[in-house]
């Protein structure tokens, strides 16, 4: 079933599940493409939560929470040994 809009220009939320692999493979994986992707993500977050007249604490809060979760994931390997029970 051919889609009406070409696959290349769809955003991630509009891509159907079956087309996901081909969509992912089609993205730009060159270094400049990756840098561009990071830049775009940063710009989106910045312009939505920080670059406003009355910004709230949640703009920074979400970044800190994401950092906390990320560092917990990194240090999970050592934390595994402090579990109270061995079998769950």
């Amino acid at each position, binding site marked *: 079933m051919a889609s009406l809009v070409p696959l290349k220009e769809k955003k991630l939320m509009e891509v159907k599940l079956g087309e996901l692999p081909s969509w992912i493979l089609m993205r730009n994986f060159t270094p400049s493409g990756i840098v561009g992707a990071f830049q775009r993500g940063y710009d989106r977050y910045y312009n*939505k*939560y*920080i*670059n*406003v*007249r*009355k*910004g*709230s*604490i*949640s*703009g920074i*809060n*979400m970044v800190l*929470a994401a950092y906390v979760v990320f560092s*917990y994931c990194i240090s999970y390997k050592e*934390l*595994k040994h*402090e*579990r*109270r*029970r061995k079998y*769950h």
Partner: protein
Amino acid sequence: MLSRVVLSAAAAAAPCLKNAAVLGPGVVQATRVFHTGQPRLAPVPPLPEYGGKVRLGLIPEEFFQFLYPKTGVTGPYVLGTGLSLYFLSKEIYVITPETFSTITVVGLIVYVIKKYGASIGEFLDKLNEEKIAQLEEVKQATIKQIQDAIDMEKAQQALVQKRHYLFDVQRNNIALALEVTYRERLHRAYKEVKNRLDYHISVQNMMRRKEQEHMIDWVEKHVVQSISAQQEKETIAKCISDLKLLAKKAQAQPVM
């Protein structure tokens, strides 16, 4: 700069000319046309007032909206509770001494934010307002400056129309000066001529007077010379006798 205006006007008027090699005076690269697109971000769109809404300070509102059609209002909260219980029971999240310090710190942070968040926000907003007001001032000052420059340019352009007054005045002055010099020289010429003529007249007068005097002297001299000594005596004797006669007559008369 005027060449660019001309080129952009030409390109706007006839879009087919955009790629043609348009040659104009002062254009260094003959094939490039500037300022042909629509101006983007002009005027700059204003900053949004509030950021994206976030619930519990951590989770954006879009997540709740995403789950609302399927699970209603309580869906995300139930999901959160279920996930946290799962992590705790399977010990994917391990309870360590650090957990208690985390709870304390997070509780403290939440308390401080709840209590002082609004006032800190106001303070920062005030700082921002001051910054923006300063920049606005600069902008207004620049606009005013440029407006003044434009007005002055217009005034100067209007003045150009009145240049002929200056030249008229100068022309009049020169004509007056010429007239004055002409009359001065005329008067001088007249005076010089009169001077010469007066000289000739006075020379003539003097000659005539000298001749008269000379003639009179000469006649007198000759007359005096011609009177001999004897004639003189006779004349004086006759005069005396005549006077005596007259004296007698005069004496005789009043007595009568």
